[in-house]
């Protein structure tokens, strides 16, 4: 059943700009560093002995913002496909369980998110090589900076999908999304328990892996809460 729902959901996101956004996010993040390094490459290279590490940190300064903003827009678009003409009632009157309908939406979004992360890794590597930052290339660090923020952002994805699919007024998830972006922007001053801080990979122990584990754990928890609430509600 999941396979059928997934192919149907991928058909539905056609011409909705979701693929374009998935591509735009990582391009935007790397493009900002293209400007940064294009203007003052010599100065930036003097800042640190570890040119690759410094470059990755610069890239990473915008990744959380792009992810939080991207998730808010993607989930809202995704839910609006069904909300627009209240197609939920048509979809749920089909021989499918509500749990799998929700899981399918979540899976499509998660796939888009990880596709975006992969593109970020490719673009970062390409531009890093272009800048000639030297050998050896820190592949492991590169992968961490590409995938860890997305994993740490899973609770935000679960929360936004929940709000977007139960609220008929799309103003509400968008508002929550905007607050999320503001929170993500001020990660430095946020306490560690705020989920919007996690994609920045900062915490008091300075261990990014804690954010990833928290992200996956709390992400699953919020997903379960969302799916239970979604299944419980009457379809209007």
């Amino acid at each position, binding site marked *: 059943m999941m396979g059928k729902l997934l192919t149907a959901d991928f058909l539905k996101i*056609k*011409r909705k700009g979701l693929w374009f956004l998935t591509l735009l996010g990582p391009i935007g993040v790397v493009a900002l560093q293209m400007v940064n390094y294009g203007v003052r490459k010599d100065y930036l290279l003097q800042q640190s002995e570890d040119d690759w590490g410094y470059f990755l940190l610069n890239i990473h300064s915008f990744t959380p913002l792009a992810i939080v903003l991207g998730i808010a827009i993607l989930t809202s678009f995704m839910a609006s496909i069904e909300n627009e003409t209240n197609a939920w009632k048509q979809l749920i009157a089909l*021989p499918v369980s509500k749990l799998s309908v929700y899981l399918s939406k979540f899976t499509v979004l998660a796939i888009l998110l990880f596709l975006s992360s992969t593109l970020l890794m490719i673009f970062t590597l390409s531009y890093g090589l272009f800048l000639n930052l030297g050998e050896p290339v820190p592949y492991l660090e590169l992968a961490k900076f590409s995938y860890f923020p997305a994993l740490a952002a899973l609770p935000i994805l679960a929360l936004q999908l929940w709000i977007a699919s139960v609220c008929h007024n799309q103003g509400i998830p968008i508002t929550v999304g905007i607050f999320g972006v503001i929170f993500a922007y001020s990660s430095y001053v946020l306490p560690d328990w705020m989920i919007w801080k996690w994609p920045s990979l900062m915490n008091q122990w300075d261990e990014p892996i804690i954010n990833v584990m928290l992200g996956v754990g709390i992400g699953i928890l919020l997903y379960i809460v969302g799916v239970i609430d979604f299944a419980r509600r009457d379809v209007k």
Partner: protein
Amino acid sequence: MEYIVQTQNLSKCFGKEQAVSNINLQIRKGEIYGFLGPNGAGKTTTIRMLLGLMKPSSGTIKIFQKDIMKERIQILANVGSLVENPSYYPHLTAYENLEALRKILGVPKARIDEVLQIVRLKEAANKKVKGFSLGMKQRLGIAAALLHNPELLILDEPTNGLDPSGIIEIRNLIKRLPKEYGMTIIISSHLLSEIDQMATQVGIVSKGTLIFQDSIEEMRKFAQPKVTFKVSNSEKGWRSLLANGIRADYHDGVIFLEECSDEKVAHIVQVLVQEGISVFRVEEEKRSLEEIFLQMTAGELTI
């Protein structure tokens, strides 16, 4: 007799408001069941519960002899539906809309062309639904409901927003389905004339309760014309008619009879004249189904 749809004391409350109370539907195979009621009587709520979109507050629903709460997915595999306004994905073409549903239902691709043919949308198949007229969207909704050749088809106000030729087209289509494919159809409407031309069985809801459920013929019996007699001394006339073994009714100074043959009218006039009563007027008064419907649902009237 086996019922395709059977509900028992089906009720639904929204907070304190009782939207549907104790509805017992009984629908047999091959019937076109007209589900009638004024706006806001609880038709759509009942239909949503039949489709498992809403959970009943109390009561049970059995479709194909199975409980909707326990075997929802198996039941819905054989149910096609169009609830209220048609749902569609405006950014996709008609064909893609059906394809998105077909993938989930797992029917062969050729079926899309078939249903598009049935609702005559073949020429518009590759146009985006965004630009469709309401009638075309409605027909697309019906095509979607027919996609998996369901045994039970539930249509909520399917002719809403259609022009007269569209209404006739849909009506003919709906009449054809039980004969050709053995489908059972539930069709809801607030227009009696509509149901009158299609349905074999009728259920009327008012304020959330089912106030009538029988064949359309039974319903039509309510619409028999009655003959009224205006005479000089109606009470005396009425008594003499009763004395002659003619069962007439007397009300507000008028004598009236239900179901009256020409011979009977002649006989009555003869009796009255022999009694020395002047007959002023003999009139036939036709009651339309609409009137009966309004009478049955009286109290619901807002205008």
